[in-house]
């Protein structure tokens, strides 16, 4: 692949991040290109979420450079290109006064001008996002009444409403049952393949999505980049990463 000749969406060089002298991330360099499906794994507290927060400008790095579409974060203005779904997304406050449609419309907020209602284009984008995530029937329901799996899809519909080029998902699986998760992974793979949306996905479920992902980053203070995850992800890597003895459970469907 001739990735080297394109401008990466994220270009990270020698990134360091410490809190009160304690090093969370050290010397991370990586690039994420348009159309990729990247999974990020690593132990809890290993710095996965911190890395995402740094990439999105929510925290400032102690040292190092981050570029978004070739620009420094403080000069970057095209935030609608990025859809972010944080870890706590499916844990919505049950009393928050929002219908599914209210939440998905939020995705268009930064594109709207003062005192003006939503244009046809905005309305279509909201509807499309709800259709893609299969939540259109739920549009008048209060988010507080939805199941974990439904909420998760609503949150992604919200991120999709801004017509993003990249989706960043931080373990959005809390409180979601197995069946919904499978359906969710299939939707992500479809967005990546059919819509060419770049996906960066922090997850623990690496076995399940191994077929879909292009590259795997393992983050545990340092980053290891795995360009061919299915072949190189061995038990030794996992043990080293998580600091325990690991046994990879092979999904028989994937064996040849």
């Amino acid at each position, binding site marked *: 692949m001739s990735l080297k000749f394109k401008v990466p969406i994220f270009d990270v060089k020698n990134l360091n991040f410490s809190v009160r002298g304690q090093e969370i991330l050290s010397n991370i360099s990586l690039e994420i290109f348009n159309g990729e499906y990247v999974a990020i794994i690593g132990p809890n507290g290993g710095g996965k979420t911190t890395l995402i927060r740094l990439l999105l400008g929510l925290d400032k790095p102690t040292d190092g450079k981050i570029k978004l579409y070739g620009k420094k974060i403080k000069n970057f203005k*095209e935030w609608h290109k990025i859809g972010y*779904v944080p870890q706590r997304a499916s844990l919505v406050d049950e009393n928050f*006064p*929002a219908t599914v*449609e209210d939440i998905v419309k*939020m995705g268009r907020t930064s594109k709207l001008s003062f005192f003006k209602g939503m244009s046809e284009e905005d309305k279509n984008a909201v509807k499309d996002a709800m259709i893609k995530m299969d939540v259109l029937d739920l549009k008048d329901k209060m988010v507080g009444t939805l199941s974990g799996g439904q909420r998760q899809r609503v949150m992604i519909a919200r991120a999709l409403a801004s017509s993003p080029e990249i989706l960043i998902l931080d373990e959005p699986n809390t409180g979601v049952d197995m069946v919904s998760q499978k359906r969710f992974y299939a939707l992500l793979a479809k967005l990546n393949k059919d819509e060419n949306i770049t996906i960066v996905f922090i997850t623990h479920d690496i076995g399940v999505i191994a077929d879909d992902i292009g590259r795997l980053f393992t983050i545990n203070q340092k980053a290891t980049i795995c360009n061919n995850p299915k072949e190189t992800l061995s038990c030794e890597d996992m043990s080293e990463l998580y600091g325990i003895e690991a046994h990879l459970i092979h999904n028989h469907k994937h064996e040849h």
Partner: protein
Amino acid sequence: MLEMFEYEFMQRAFIAGILIATLASISGTYIVLRRYSLMSETLAHSALVGVAVGLVAGYNPLWMAVIVAVISAWLIEYLRSSFSIYSDAILSILLSGSLAIAIIIVSLGGAFNNSLFSYLFGSILSVSSEDVLTILIFGSVSLALLIAFSRDLYFIAYDEEVAKTSGIRVKFLNYLLVTVVAIIIALSIRVVGSLLIGALMVIPTVAALQYRVGFLNTVLISLFIALFSVIAGMTFSFYFSLPSGATIVLCVISIFIISLVINKK
């Protein structure tokens, strides 16, 4: 019922009351959703510092209340975003601090009198034409800002960080919201009183939330509850010679209890 409108002071009080109910309930929605409910109390006490300065130094107390409340709101927002202190602790510190300063100023200036009392508990008798004009001017600007940025403020109330990564100017809008809220609170203390305004800002929204409807309907229900309470409260206040602020607060609390009971899970 209409005889009360034969009095000019009642006409003024009603205009002021309706404006304040509208402003307090709409801005209150964001305040409640952001878990800032205590902020209205704190700013109301800060506004008292302005009133005290105004009474002692001979400036317009309402204007001074607006100025001091806005400064206090900025201080709260700055402390909240720049230091690791719990937000409710910041509010608590500033609340008692402001009250202490207000009491000392008033006591040194010898202004412990009925005039101060009317700012603490609200008095419809004391609303002047100048007050109505001040409320109208500041109120219109505040309302226009709240409407212009309603979607952004709603998004921030839902999730500040996601709003930020969607390109919303979160820092600017946070300061804007607290400024508008400070202005509204300072304007309200004439009619509702600084010890009671928090109720008018917070309770209509909390009552409206019980109906579990979408955002726009929540704002509309909250607005209706606030308007109804202010109109009913002032009417009772007139016919039964009761203090206006306290009567309004009891009306809004009654509606809250009714909302709570009829929407019980």
